[in-house]
């Protein structure tokens, strides 16, 4: 009664203090209050005799931080720096448990006759697997309790690599995860940088879910400082990921930041490193030599290709064509022309690009942190700073990160409060008007380095020399004078999270999690008044009155500034009840049940200011008529002044209920079941379809613990199997008629809206059915350990385009109409090849993943639609990203490609292209590697260690670039095989490169560029990186330094073997990746 009264008083007081109108908050506070009271009611009763002792290792060195606990109670203590401890017993007969990570636990029974002081010798624990915990974002499990498929990347492995990005560091070391370097890119391509176990959607969201400290991370993952990351867990199958429900269809990456630890003296660590990356290797990209390109231009000039541009008086023609034109106009004679062209052909613009536009990139990364804790509190504070100057001379970026977290234990350790703050501020600068040479012999600077004007590819240089007769601004484009940053992107992210855990009664706890995240990003592009961009825009629309000579500039003088900003706000709350305890001897339950709410709100807007004056921050937009069509100065077409103002917002809301129960018996048998229901504010969906229930189940059996198990060579053997469902949400589809407000106006300047979705009452969420079978093993002494897993993922109800009769007004609509199956294997084997003074540890990864479209209702169209973009026009029975090619029957006697139509040789290129007979094309293979993996080696000796990672990919093909008739004749000179082209009869016997024809025929060109003769095997083995580090304190035996090491790390060292004979790097087909080297140090105090 008395307690009830106190409770109510406390509750009303809190309500009053916070003046909180919402029952939500008051309920929360009430819960807190109850727990406070509870906590206060049970104060600990510590009394009894003190016992003391020392803990040492086998070499007799004292060990600090060893836990001394009394079995069956919560009383425990730690050893100090000298390995000494003292503990009070509340009863004379107790069992002391002496435990420390990496050592075998020692038990000692005390009695009135055995009261110390004790001396415990701890023996290093090498026979057990390392204590690996798996953080699912909802609970932390020991690996033995997890039936699902997960990969754990610890901070040591993460820190092997350098660089500012966290996710990059997963490349080549994460079982089952691949970076999609071979994905098609471009408009309408739906791809993700990272795939976990292949593809599970077609047009839905392909990205894995990223969790940071228990909640989805909605910011840019590049904002995270890798040095703050303690571990990353990748959840791959249903049992592991089902807890994330509808967002887990593509796998989950759970990132956990470093935290302070209780009962640990303050530790300080400092890291610093620098990375130098060479200039882009532009000379490795094949292109026509200046001489060859002038030869091409000469032929096109004679054929009349440039006449249209020559005749209109302003159109772009290259310097070589200007010379040829002078000759044709009898201004210069043929020998002068020859010598002028000859001197042009001596230039190679790439030399100037390397000299003036690129530099070696330098990345610097610094971080310092302090962490520690006592009995009731722990903390960690870190500050990091990154600064990068990039290869393009105008690009740079920097980032500041602050990370602080604290945990407090109260009420006899029953209540724990954890708070964390993460702050990131980054900015980057670049020149957005990047220069791209129009010819291989272009010159942007003279011999003294003075900027030279070049054409922008639209207007002829000789035209802008004289255009305007004084009425226009200087119309010359000098790339070198413009080579400074005009674009700044800034982003700021804050993330605050709090967790309160209360132990209701052993083993039941309840926890409240709350997250608030806010991010703001601003982009600012300023074309100054003197920039070419601004001068060109103003000049293009300048109106000169022919009779009065008056000049009117619809775009006012001054700069043009484009700003855009986006902010998002993320609120998440979670209540979870946890149970972790034995229900009977040997029978353990680890279960959670919870409820979660989340909201992600974002808004973005952009503005464009004309006539911008940076001095006064003023603009002249009010003088502009955006509806008027103005004649372009140089030709008769008209255009309006685009209005760059826009605004949009979005809101995602989610409500979820979930439960996960893991039952284990005698640590041999584990059963797990999870269920989750997600609801979301999918627009226009009936209430009962806003949610979807998903579930999973799994089991594992530690075979090696059975009595009948006698295989001494493999003392650890475990079998696992899971089955269940993940989902994938696509909020772009809805069940009701919905329309989208257009971003601009129609031809008559009215706003419009378009119908985005016809009614589709049967719409469902995408689902992925996931089965996984695994085997874990370890040989004696843990010498070789590993796992083998096999999985099948069936994506069904996938959002696809479903065909209906066009008389309905929609020929296709998005609905649940497609299916996709992915199956594969993940194998991981790690071996301690040599242990002793010299240690050699190696880990080997092998992954196999192959997907296949099993259902797709839309006819993919012509063979060219499939060959040109199979990912948008999937063919049932083949992978999502498959490469198809036109059949190749060589060149005919005129150097034209020969392909096939309806089984017969043909050179009717349009018919070949439009054919729907699938026999006329060939399936070349998967566009993504179906087999991949790595071999990571770590060698160490006396504080020196060498680590190198060899990665491999095979089972896929890529389409090599070759001579492209259309592109070449449209001015693209960056292509190989010009030398190899058919030139005279008989050449068809030595080459597959067709002759060049004028006018270029698009169909003829694409039959070659998409033919099977250009398909190459993508298989290769790469020396991905190499790291050499030295532990200094081993050398110096310093007592001040806890740890210190130096390292050198080198990346993109080259390809060790490749299947293609043309020296093409399949991961970087245009030009070779630049090599980089980093060096740095780590100091722990």
């Amino acid at each position: 009664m008395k307690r009830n009264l106190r409770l109510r008083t406390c509750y009303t007081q809190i309500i009053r203090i916070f003046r909180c109108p919402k029952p939500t908050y008051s309920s929360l506070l009430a819960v807190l209050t109850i727990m406070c009271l509870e906590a206060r009611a049970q104060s600990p009763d510590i009394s009894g005799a003190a016992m003391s002792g020392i803990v040492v290792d086998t070499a007799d060195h004292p060990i600090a931080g060893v836990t001394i606990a009394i079995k069956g109670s919560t009383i425990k203590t730690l050893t100090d720096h000298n390995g000494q401890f003292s503990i009070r017993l509340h009863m004379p007969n107790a069992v002391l448990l002496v435990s420390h990570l990496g050592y075998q636990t020692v038990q000692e029974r005390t009695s009135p006759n055995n009261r110390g002081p004790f001396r415990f010798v701890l023996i290093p624990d090498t026979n057990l697997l390392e204590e690996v915990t798996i953080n699912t974002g909802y609970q932390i499990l020991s690996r033995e309790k997890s039936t699902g498929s997960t990969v754990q990347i610890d901070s040591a492995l993460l820190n092997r690599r350098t660089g500012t990005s966290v996710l990059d560091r997963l490349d080549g070391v994460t079982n089952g995860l691949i970076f999609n370097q071979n994905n098609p890119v471009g408009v309408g391509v739906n791809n993700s940088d990272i795939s976990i176990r292949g593809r599970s959607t077609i047009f839905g969201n392909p990205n894995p879910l990223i969790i940071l400290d228990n909640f989805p991370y909605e910011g840019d993952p590049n904002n995270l400082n890798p040095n703050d990351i303690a571990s990353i867990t990748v959840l791959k199958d249903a049992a592991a990921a089902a807890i994330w429900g509808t967002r887990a269809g593509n796998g989950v990456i759970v990132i956990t930041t470093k935290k302070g630890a209780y009962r640990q003296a303050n530790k300080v660590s400092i890291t610093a490193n620098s990375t130098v990356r060479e200039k882009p290797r532009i000379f490795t990209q094949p292109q026509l030599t200046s001489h060859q390109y002038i030869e091409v231009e000469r032929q096109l000039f004679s054929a009349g290709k440039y006449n249209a541009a020559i005749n209109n008086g302003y159109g772009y023609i290259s310097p070589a064509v200007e010379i040829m034109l002078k000759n044709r106009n009898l201004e210069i004679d043929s020998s002068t022309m020859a010598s002028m062209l000859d001197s042009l052909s001596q230039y190679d613009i790439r030399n100037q690009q390397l000299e003036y536009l690129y530099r070696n990139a330098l990345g610097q990364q610094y971080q310092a942190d302090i962490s520690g804790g006592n009995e009731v509190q722990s903390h960690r504070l870190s500050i990091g700073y990154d600064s990068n100057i990039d290869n393009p001379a105008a690009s740079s970026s920097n980032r500041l990160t602050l990370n602080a977290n604290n945990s407090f234990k109260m009420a006899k350790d029953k209540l724990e409060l954890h708070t964390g703050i993460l702050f990131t501020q980054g900015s980057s600068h670049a020149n957005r008007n990047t220069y791209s040479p129009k010819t291989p012999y272009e010159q942007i600077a003279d011999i003294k380095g003075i900027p030279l004007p070049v054409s922008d590819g639209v207007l002829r240089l000789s035209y802008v020399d004289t255009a305007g007769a004084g009425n226009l601004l200087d119309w010359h484009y000098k790339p070198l004078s413009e080579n400074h940053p005009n674009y700044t992107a800034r982003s700021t992210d804050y993330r605050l999270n709090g967790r309160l855990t209360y132990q209701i009664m052993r083993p039941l706890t309840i926890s409240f999690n709350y997250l608030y995240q806010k991010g703001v990003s601003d982009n600012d592009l300023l074309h100054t008044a003197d920039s070419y961009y601004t001068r060109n825009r103003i000049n293009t629309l300048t109106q000169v009155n022919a009779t009065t000579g008056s000049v009117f500039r619809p775009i006012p003088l001054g700069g043009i500034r484009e700003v855009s900003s986006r902010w998002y706000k993320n609120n998440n709350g979670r209540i979870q009840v946890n149970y972790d305890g034995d229900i009977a001897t040997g029978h353990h339950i680890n279960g959670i049940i919870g409820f979660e709410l989340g909201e992600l709100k974002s808004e973005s807007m952009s503005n464009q200011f004309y006539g911008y004056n940076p001095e006064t921050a003023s603009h002249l937009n009010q003088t502009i008529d955006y509806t008027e069509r103005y004649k372009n100065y140089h030709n008769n077409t008209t255009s309006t002044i685009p209005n760059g103002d826009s605004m949009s917002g979005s809101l995602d809301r989610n409500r979820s209920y979930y439960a996960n129960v893991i039952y284990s018996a005698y640590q041999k048998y584990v059963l797990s079941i999870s269920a989750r229901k997600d609801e979301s504010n999918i627009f226009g969906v009936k209430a009962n379809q806003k949610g979807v229930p998903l579930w999973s189940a799994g089991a594992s059996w530690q075979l090696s613990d059975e009595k009948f198990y006698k295989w001494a060579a493999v003392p650890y053997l475990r079998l696992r199997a899971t089955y269940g469902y993940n989902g994938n949400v696509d909020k772009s589809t809805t069940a009701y008629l919905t329309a989208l407000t257009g971003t601009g106006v129609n031809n008559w300047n009215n706003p419009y809206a378009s119908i985005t979705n016809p009614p589709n009452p049967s719409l469902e969420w995408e689902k992925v059915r996931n089965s996984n079978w695994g085997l874990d093993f370890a040989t004696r002494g843990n010498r070789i350990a590993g796992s083998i897993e096999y999985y099948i993922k069936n994506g069904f109800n996938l959002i696809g385009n479903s065909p209906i009769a066009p008389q309905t007004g929609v020929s296709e609509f998005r609905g649940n109409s497609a299916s996709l199956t992915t199956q594969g294997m993940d194998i991981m084997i790690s071996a301690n090849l040599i242990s002793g003074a010299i240690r050699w540890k190696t880990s080997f990864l092998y992954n196999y993943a192959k997907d296949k479209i099993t259902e797709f209702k839309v006819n993919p169209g012509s063979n060219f639609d499939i060959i040109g973009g199979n990912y948008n026009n999937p063919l049932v029975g083949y992978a999502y990203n498959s490469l198809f090619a036109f059949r190749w029957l060589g060149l005919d006697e005129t150097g034209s490609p020969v392909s096939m139509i309806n089984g017969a040789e043909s050179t009717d290129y349009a018919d070949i292209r439009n054919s729907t007979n699938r026999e006329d094309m060939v399936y070349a293979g998967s566009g993504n590697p179906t087999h991949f993996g790595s071999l990571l080696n770590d060698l160490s000796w006396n504080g020196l260690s060498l680590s190198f990672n060899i990665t491999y990919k095979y089972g896929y093909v890529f389409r090599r670039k070759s001579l492209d008739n259309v592109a070449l004749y449209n001015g693209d000179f960056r292509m190989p095989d010009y030398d190899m082209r058919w030139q005279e009869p008989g050449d068809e016997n030595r080459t597959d490169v067709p002759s060049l024809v004028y006018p270029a025929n698009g169909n003829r060109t694409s039959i070659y560029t998409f033919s099977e003769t250009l398909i190459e095997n993508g298989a290769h083995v790469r020396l991905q990186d190499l790291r050499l580090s030295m532990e200094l304190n081993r050398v110096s035996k310093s007592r001040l330094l806890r740890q210190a090491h130096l390292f050198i790390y080198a990346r993109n060292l080259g390809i060790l073997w490749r299947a293609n004979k043309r020296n093409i790097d399949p991961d970087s087909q245009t030009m070779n990746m630049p090599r980089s080297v980093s060096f740095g140090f780590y100091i722990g105090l």
Partner: protein
Amino acid sequence: MKHTTTILTLIFILYSCSDNFLNEKPSTNIIVPSSLEDFRNLLDYTGFQVLNKTCALGQLASDDYEYVDYDSYRSVPTLTERNSYIWAKDIFGGEIDRLDWNSPWGTIFYANNVLKGLKAVDREVNPTLFDDTQGWALFVRAYAMYDLARNFSPAYDSQTADTDLGIPLRLQPEIDILLPRATVEQTYNQIIGDAKYAAELLGSDYQPTYKNRPSKSACFAFLARVYLSMNNYEQAEAYADNALSLYDKLMDYNDISTTSSTPFSNTNDELIFASNQVNDYITTATTSSNSYVTVNRELLSLYHPSDLRLLLYFGTSNTGHIFVKRGYYGSGLYPFSGLATDELFLIKAECLARRNTPKDAIAVLNHLLAHRYESNAFNPLQAIDAEEALATILNERRKELVWRGIRWSDLKRLNKIGANIVLRRQLGGEEFVLSPNDPKYVFPIPDDEITRSGITQNQR
């Protein structure tokens, strides 16, 4: 354990206070159309391939143009273009998603959604705007249905209209209903009924700025066009008169730049209702870079040297072929196919000639031509009788309405009444002939419609 109970109770409180939590919309630019403004925004969706678009097959099959040479013909990207040119039996060659068929159905879908949505709007709040929106939807639906009928059904013939196949008459937006084809009679009744009702609903003003939106004069002009294609001259003349009484302005071509590649704006004075042909086909594009085809040389020879249309409609490219400049649509590469006052004068003149008043007919024609010739070079035309007047008017009609997608339905209706126009093409040493009233005057329906809805295909 009692705390657990308390906590579970609190969870329920938390849960219950968020009933409307999931009802917020996920994006600010997504709407469930419900207001007049929403519906008008839908009808203003002209930028893409839905509203204010018409079929281009009639243009492809017409005698307005010819290929520069056989190689150009062979290099054209779509089979539909190549097959249409030679009046092949199957013109799509398996190509699907043809906008010629799909765009008008898209318009009908939008219109039906608006008409259905309007039922839930209270008219009394803004009766004028309500009626205008309803009239707009009815008009664009009728306009799209007529476009389908003139291309995919035989020309109207009162003798056979009860049995000839028209188009499915979709009057509801639901996409789970598939309809068979109605008769030509039912189709034209629906079109005319809708257009007349729209004329009652729409304000009497000529729409001055927003040419994608219909007006009362657009309804009348459209009805004049429809009745003429049915060879119903009495009604055609009456509606042409109705339209002209509301608005009859002509542009004097002497005031227009002959050097501009875009001589007409999309708000020009003759424009009554704007639509353009679907942009599936490069060969219909009105630009000098459409180098595949050239304007029919025989047609070009019909223009008098002082006829300004020669300079305003056509240009000569660097490679020597004659291309079509941007027409009355103003912007965009694809040809104008909408309603304008010049067509009304031609309808009026033709109807006058057909009811044997040649003088009046020629006077109307001269009024138009006076705006087309160089100011001092125009000699008014004359005709001795109705027959000569009619021939002159039809000749001028062809010259005036070139590249506007009208020629094909003219060929259909004129051959129906015995004009006996035979089309011939020479290509790669072969001659192709299309005889009058050939079933190939009716285009086949694209395969995707036939296979998915099972409606009856046209026999060619």
